[in-house]
């Protein structure tokens, strides 16, 4: 007996239904559809308004100059709006944060999915989720009040608020995202692959590295990209802990100096900027850049997650 198809109602009236029912059903559904479209509307509105506020700026100052100049002097006599140092700053903290959090996150994900029993999982998973629950302002507080003085006193840095401080805290913030997405995709790898590998005599480590992780690779890449998105978009921690110096670190590996990210610039400058002036629009232009970047990363992560679904045949 065919099960009733709940998704497709027949367009033709059923003898049991009256006109009223039919109308209410379809009007009801249309209303629901329109309400659901609010989310689409929101994304479009966000894009529209940010573009609207930043367009005059982009028309007045050339885009190439905006992207390649390192001088950010919005209040000078002849204002200069070069965002390169800010883009590089965001890049620096994100990559360094990923350097800390990807290996740790993957190992933790492997731990949760392969190495321990379900019981231990139920204890450890909430702990990691707790890390995700802590608000970003509390992380920033920790970075400024506890980590920065420690760095200055014990590690002898010139300044405790610097790229390293911000990257470390961002790594801790990105960790739960990476762990949970990676663990989901590693767990979704079918038992058969693992069993086949063990059957051939591989140790657990070899199985994980040579069979499971490659099989779950798209999910893991998606996890990394999601962690990257979290790190790029984070504002409070970098605003409080990165020092906010609009510069590109001089020996490229020197993370002990202050840098400034795009998010911190927007947050820090917007409060004191007069609405409608060039500086204000330049901040929206930075916001547009950030938005475009995160949307691209989002699309990429979706692609990789879809790849993971295809491979392992399960949702998420």
């Amino acid at each position: 007996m065919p099960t009733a198809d709940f998704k497709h109602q027949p367009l033709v009236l059923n003898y049991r239904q009256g006109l009223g029912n039919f109308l209410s059903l379809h009007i009801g559904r249309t209303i629901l559809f329109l309400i659901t479209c609010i989310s689409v509307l929101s994304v479009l509105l966000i894009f529209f308004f940010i573009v609207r506020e930043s367009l005059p700026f982009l028309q007045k100052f050339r885009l190439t100059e905006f992207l390649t100049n390192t001088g950010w002097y919005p209040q000078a006599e002849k204002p200069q709006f070069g965002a390169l140092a800010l883009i590089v700053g965001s890049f620096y903290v994100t990559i360094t944060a990923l350097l800390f959090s990807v290996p740790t996150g993957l190992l933790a994900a492997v731990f949760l999915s392969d190495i321990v029993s379900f019981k231990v999982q139920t204890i450890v998973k909430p702990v990691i989720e707790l890390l995700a629950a802590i608000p970003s302002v509390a992380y920033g507080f920790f970075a400024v009040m506890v980590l920065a003085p420690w760095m200055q006193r014990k590690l002898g840095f010139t300044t405790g608020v610097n790229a390293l401080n911000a990257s470390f805290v961002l790594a801790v913030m990105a960790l739960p995202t990476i762990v949970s997405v990676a663990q989901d995709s590693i767990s979704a790898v079918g038992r058969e692959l693992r069993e086949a590998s063990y059957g051939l005599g591989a140790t657990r480590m070899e199985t994980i590295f040579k069979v499971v992780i490659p099989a779950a690779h798209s999910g893991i890449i998606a996890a990394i990209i999601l962690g990257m998105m979290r790190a790029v978009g984070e504002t409070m921690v970098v605003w409080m802990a990165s020092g906010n110096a609009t510069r590109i670190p001089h020996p490229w590996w020197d993370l002990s100096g202050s840098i400034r990210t795009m998010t911190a610039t927007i947050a820090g400058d917007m409060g004191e900027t007069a609405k409608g002036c060039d500086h204000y629009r330049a901040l929206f232009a930075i916001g547009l850049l950030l938005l475009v970047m995160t949307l691209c990363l989002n699309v990429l992560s979706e692609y990789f997650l879809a790849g993971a679904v295809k491979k392992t045949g399960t949702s998420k």
Partner: protein
Amino acid sequence: MRKLVVCGLVILALVLTTALKAADKALQIEGSTTVGPICDAFTEAFNKTYPDIKITVTKNGSGNGAAALIDKRCDIAMMSRFMKLEEFTAAVDKGVMPVAHTIALDGVCMIVHPSNPVTELSIQQIHDIYIGKIKNWKELGGPDMPIVAISRDTSSGTYETFDNFVMKKVKMDAGIEYVSSNPQVHARVKTTPGAIGYVGIGFLDAEVKGLKVNGIMPSKETITNGTYSLSRPLFLFTNGFPELGSLSYNFCTFYLSEKGQEIINAKGFVPVTHY
């Protein structure tokens, strides 16, 4: 389910009724973070004598204060610099007549960490530090430590004064750390041995060390008699002169009273008059 709906309706009702309650007499004050602490303290004193008046002090920079006054979004604009020509013309165009009340005098002080042996700098030296020419304290007779220069590159009046007297429109070096308020400069300098920054004299206290500029130490006397070069008056701007006896008027003339002066003194600024 029904309970949720009822709760939601109750909250909605509460919210709407509070929205409909007329905004009783309120005073909106916006502007400089330098003048901010003085106005906060004035507000506290006012709240004792007028308990049902709501005074909101928003510290978001002199430029924003001016813009808010021009758009008639605030009653009083706190500014640590005088209004620029563009702001004046914009105000007049919108029918706003800015009137300045000088409530206190301030000096922009150079501060360093108390462990720094350097005691004085010339304006040229400060200029060179901030354009990146001098990078290490040993070039100034101090220890071998990189200079961590801190600035406020915003529409802040403190920055404008600093720019006026020291930078003289030359752009600062890229490596300057940027913070967004006076207390932040104070906090950074207090905790970083190699730091140098500039704050209003109200923020010069025992936790940081003030430097002599061109041989003159910033103090109440040197600011009042004009020998300290980086001094400036602090203003409250209103739209026209406030009506005599109104809340605005009382607020803008509070600095003349003994209590007002006590507050200004307590905050570390220089009162305009002396009891």
